[in-house]
């Protein structure tokens, strides 16, 4: 059996707990410090690490959006990748202050399908390296696990794209 199950909130919450203790508490009076199990604040390095992975996902999304624009016939094959990365981004971006979520300059891609697929493949390989680095450097085990899942998903989708491209 794998380790304890983690809820979405626990996963991100323990990965990047703010120094503030949650104010609302249904059961225990807020004034009682004893008995509350506030998670230990995570090292600030993990906050920067998450921001870095968020930036990598935003960049990769930009490439996928540009690919669909350049070669609309690829939309069906690229949509699963976009959906997956949207979910990855959605989970991680909640931990990054609004002002730090980057925008990516959309790249200009050629219109021929093989060249577009090559650009997407390279972008996804770069994203995989960046997520992998984040996973290995994460101080929080829960964060490392989330990033490992993102890496595994990215690898799966890359293989699926390659399968489709095979003659």
């Amino acid at each position, binding site marked *: *059996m*794998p*380790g*304890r*199950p*983690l*809820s*979405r909130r626990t*996963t991100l919450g323990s990965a990047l707990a703010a120094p503030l203790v949650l104010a609302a508490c249904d059961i225990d009076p807020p004034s009682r410090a004893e008995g509350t199990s506030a998670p230990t604040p995570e090292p600030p390095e993990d906050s920067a690490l998450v921001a870095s992975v968020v930036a990598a996902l935003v960049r990769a999304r930009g490439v996928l959006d540009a690919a669909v624009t350049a070669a609309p016939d690829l939309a069906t094959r690229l949509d*699963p990748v976009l*959906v*997956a990365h949207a*979910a*990855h981004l959605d*989970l991680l971006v909640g931990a990054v202050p609004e002002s730090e979520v980057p925008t990516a300059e959309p790249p200009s891609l050629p219109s021929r399908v093989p060249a577009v697929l090559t650009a997407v493949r390279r972008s996804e390989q770069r994203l995989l390296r960046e997520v*992998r680095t984040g*996973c*290995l450097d994460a101080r929080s*085990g*829960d964060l*490392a*696990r*989330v990033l*490992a*899942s993102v*890496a*595994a*998903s990215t*690898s*799966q*989708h890359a*293989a*699926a794209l390659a*399968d489709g491209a095979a003659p």
Partner: protein
Amino acid sequence: MTVLDALQDTLGDEHAALYTYGVLGARTSQAATPALYDALTTGYRRHRARRDRLRVLVEESGGVPVAAAAAYELDGPLLRVAQVQAEAVATEESSVEVLLALVAQSVGGVREWALAEATWSATWQLELGGGPRTWPGAPELD
């Protein structure tokens, strides 16, 4: 959970995976379905290498490697190709889950190894007829 617990859990899962792959390989014809047979052979070898490495990692962490059971329960008759593939995919999905738990509990070289193996198992599912997922190994995030 400690890193030793996670290593033992992963080793236990590998024993089950090896048993499963052995059964699946025995029910697959190399002549009739060579691609599936090759995929199962590759999977078997990978899991055997993992098992061997995990035994070393457990010992290095001060533990006694958990032993394999005599047999493991498998789902269904596992006679048709689709059933064999589904069982192999399920085996790899279980691998990804325990390896992600090991990622969470480990650092450095062990985490790097667990990440590489988790990525391999997730990707190998596609060779076995599985599809890409958003959160491999982390079903609570779906």
